[in-house]
Every structure is written in C-alpha cells, then in structure tokens.
C-alpha cells in the first residue's frame, strides 16, 4: 500500500444506490470521493441529488446497491464515525451534559476515554469548547435551537470520531446563529484535526467551511466537479463576508444552475 492511501481517512468507490426495484432511477450513480486525514469536504447539490443518502451510506444507516465505502485505519482499531443529524435529535429526558456524554456512556464508546474521570473531563472540555458550560444541566427543551445544535455537534465529537458526518446541521437555524456556529465548529474541527464531510444546500456555508467542495447533480445523483477552496484554515469571520468567498460562491452557483 502506498503512503498516500494510508493518509486517506475515507475512500468512497463507485457507490450506486437505487431504492426499491432495480429498474427505478438511481439515487446515486458511481460516486467516488477520497478524503485525506483532517480534511473537510463539503457536498452541495440540489435537493434530491442524494447527498444525504450518500452520508447515510457512509454511516451505515443505508447500504449501497453497489460500490464500497472504506475507512482506512492507521492504528488497526476500527475507525469511528459519528453523525450530526439535521434535527438535533437530542434525547429530551437527558440534560445537556448527559446528551453530550451519550456516545461515550455506551459500551461501544466507553473505551474512547480510558476512565470515568477522563470521560467526564472530555465532556467538560467539549462543553467549554462549544460554549455550553453554563447550560450543562439544562434540558434540551430549555435551550435555543442554536444551542441544541451545539450539543448535537459536541455529542458527535465526544466519541473522537475519525470521520465526522454533518447532515445539513445548521439548516434549521436563523442566519446569525448559523454564521456564528459555522465559525465555531470550523475552529473546533481544525483544533481536533477531525476529518469531516458536510452535506448542505447552502453554497456559502460549504465554501466557508470546507477545503474542497463536491458539486453534485440530481437524477441520477452524481459528483460533477470538485472545487478546491484556496484559503487557510481555520477560517475567520473576515473570510465569511469577503469578496473572494462571494466569487467562489457565485461560480459554484452558476455550475448548479447551468441554464440561467
């Protein structure tokens, strides 16, 4: 195996997906993507292009009709995935702290942090990192939507995933909260060196957060082009409203609307 292959955290190879009978139109057709360790890839495309399905296949919530998803491991241990749902899907009967600790309180995630003390410390750090410390003992229904999504992300990060999957995590939020979360989550992922795949319909968000943006088209869902974003991470608020970002955003927008 070459060294570049080992550096990959996620390799998607010719994934096809058809729901139901095989004569139905494919949702995904021949999707291939590679992610280097620590890389942030965003996937944009019109609704119905299968981008969420792709994410669910990577996570194992759906199975591909054909093709493979590989998670090369450097340590020999099974690589860990975690998923940030579009709706925060926090367990309403648990406090913010217990929700963040959900993954690592289970048998499967307990060994991520050696001891109970280490687990508690990891949760404390994540709460701090996501600005949730003051709300640790609140119930999910007592905090705002933006805060709930922070908990959602913190919960996913608590298991120290090798690859983090984000399924339109900010789409239900107001513009101000969304922009703030984009900056914060970007910094946190950069900080932890987490490999991430973000699925979004918000081109601006994709350009702002990602190292590369994969543009998908629908019917059948397939990757049309991959755009590199030439801007060092972590990304700053200045970049969020810069003409450079707007320029890249416009060019991607044009590719998604070729007839306009």
């Amino acid at each position, binding site marked *: 195996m070459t060294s570049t292959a080992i550096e990959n955290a996620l390799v998607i190879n010719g994934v096809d997906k058809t729901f139901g009978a095989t004569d139905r139109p494919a949702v995904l057709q021949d999707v291939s993507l590679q992610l280097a360790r620590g890389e942030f890839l965003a996937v944009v495309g019109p609704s119905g292009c299968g981008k969420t399905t792709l994410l669910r296949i990577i*996570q*194992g*919530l759906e199975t591909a009709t054909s093709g493979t998803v590989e998670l090369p491991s450097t340590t020999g241990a099974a690589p860990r*995935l*975690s*998923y940030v*749902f579009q*709706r925060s*899907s926090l*367990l*309403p*009967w648990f406090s913010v702290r217990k929700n963040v600790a*959900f*993954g690592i*309180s*289970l*048998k*499967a*995630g307990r060994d991520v942090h050696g001891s109970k003390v280490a687990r508690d410390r990891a949760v404390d750090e994540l709460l701090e990192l996501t*600005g949730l410390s003051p*709300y640790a003992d609140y*119930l999910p*229904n*007592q*905090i*705002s939507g*933006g*805060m709930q999504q922070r908990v959602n992300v913190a919960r996913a990060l608590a*298991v120290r995933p090798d690859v983090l999957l984000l399924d339109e995590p900010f789409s239900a939020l107001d513009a*101000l*909260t969304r922009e*703030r979360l984009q900056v914060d989550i970007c910094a946190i992922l950069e900080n932890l060196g987490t490999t991430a795949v973000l699925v979004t319909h918000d081109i601006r968000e994709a350009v702002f957060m990602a190292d590369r943006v994969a543009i998908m088209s629908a019917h059948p869902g397939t990757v049309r082009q991959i755009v590199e974003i030439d801007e060092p991470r972590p990304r700053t608020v200045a970049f969020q409203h810069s003409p450079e970002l707007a320029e890249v955003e416009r060019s991607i927008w044009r590719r998604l609307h070729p007839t306009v």
Partner: protein
Amino acid sequence: MTTTMSEPGTVTDVPTRTRRTSPARRAALRTPYGVISIVAGLLLWELLVRVFEPNPLVIVAPSTIAATLWELFRTGSIWPDLIVSMQGFAIGYVLAAVVAIALGLAIGASTILYRWTNPWVNALYATPIIGLAPLMIIIFGFGLQSKVAVVIALVIFPILINTVAGARAVSTDYRELAVVYQASRFETFTKVLFPGALPFILTGLRLAVGRGLIGVVVADLFGASSGLGLNLQQSAQSFDTPNIFAVTVLLAFLGIVLTGVIEFFEHRAHRGMK
C-alpha cells in the same frame, strides 16, 4: 416554558412574554371545583336519605357509611381481608407491569414481532378476561395465588398495549441515534426506548389500577378464604348494606390514590418530553 436564552454574542430581541391572567381567572383557577362538587353531592345524598328515608337495605346515608368505615378500622376487623386483597393486588400488579413493560418494548422495537403479536394483544385486551376468574380459582385455589393470577390477567394487557404504542412512537431519529453510537440492544432499551415510551407506559399503568382492583375483588366472588371481595359477598348475604358501601368506598379510595400518584408522574413525564 417561556425561557428565552441568548447565545454569547448573538443579538436576541425576543420580547419576554409574560402570561397575563386576569384576577378573576386566577381566582377561578384556585377554586377547588372538584372538592366542592363532591362535598355538595354527598350533602345532597345525606339530605335525600334523611328526608325520604328509603329502605336501608337499598341505600344508606354517607354518614352511616362513614360510621361503618370508622368501626371497621376501630375494631380492626377489616385488616385481614384488606391485607390479603392488597397483597394480591400489589404482587399481581407489579409482576404484570414488569412483564408487560419488557415485552411491550421488545414488541414495539421489532416490526416482525409486532406483526405477529399485535392481533393477539388487541384481541386479549378487548376480551373480558374476568370470565376466566373461576378457572383461576380451580387452578390456584382459594388463597393469594388465585387473586394474583386474576390481577395479572386483567392488568397485563392495558400496560402491554400502551408500552407497545409508546415504543413504536419513539422517533426514528432516536433509534438511528442508537445505531450511530452503536448502542447494544440492552442500552437501546434502557436509554432510548424505555424513557421514550415512559409517558405511554405510565398511562397504561394508570388505566391498569382500576382493572386490577376489580380483579382482586371479583376473584374472591368465585371462592376465597379471605379478601375484600369475600367480605362484600358475606355482607350481601347478611343484608349488611352499610358494610357493602363502606368496603366499596375503601376500594374507591385506594383506586383514586394510586391513580393520582401515577397521574402525577405522568404529567411530569409528558412535560419532560416537549
């Protein structure tokens, strides 16, 4: 809940809404209509009995019932029957609840199991299983066991049917969450399905109280060596109407208290789910 919370650095101009309640409305809310209604009803009953003096074999005044109840506890004559019945009820109820909740979560979690068992659960829930009470007496005898068996038979289906509904109502999001974090089957039950289904389970437990009390009384009617049902039967045979009313009131009181306690937790569970 009207708590509004701002994230650091985020502008929130959401006006805090205070619910305005008029003084008249607040007074109305504080008026204990339930208590007033019951007291008024009892007074009316007392009055009618005193004015029309009906046959005391048919109906007696609330004051007579109260006096009889007082006597039952003062002499302690009620205790042997009361204790046996409460034991039968408690053991049967708890056993049925444990089985029904575990089984209900399993059925609710599995589509295949649900398809196969649902017709049975529904049919048995609708069946007046009390009809099997004589059979229980034949099998288990006149003692505690037959009461426990009848209570279980009556109580298990309302709890089961509600637990199944509750487990099925747990959102797919939460089930997928368990998949993503690789929760074991047991963890999925204890951390996701059980808390998610809890409001439904409590409803089932509440509805089961009344049925369980009926069960423990009716079981006695087909043969028993002691119990409140036997006490009622013997009162009837000796035309002791005040005693029949007194024991019935006692049973009603037990039912109301148990139901009230469960209802309290039910409200809390529902509030926690929002």
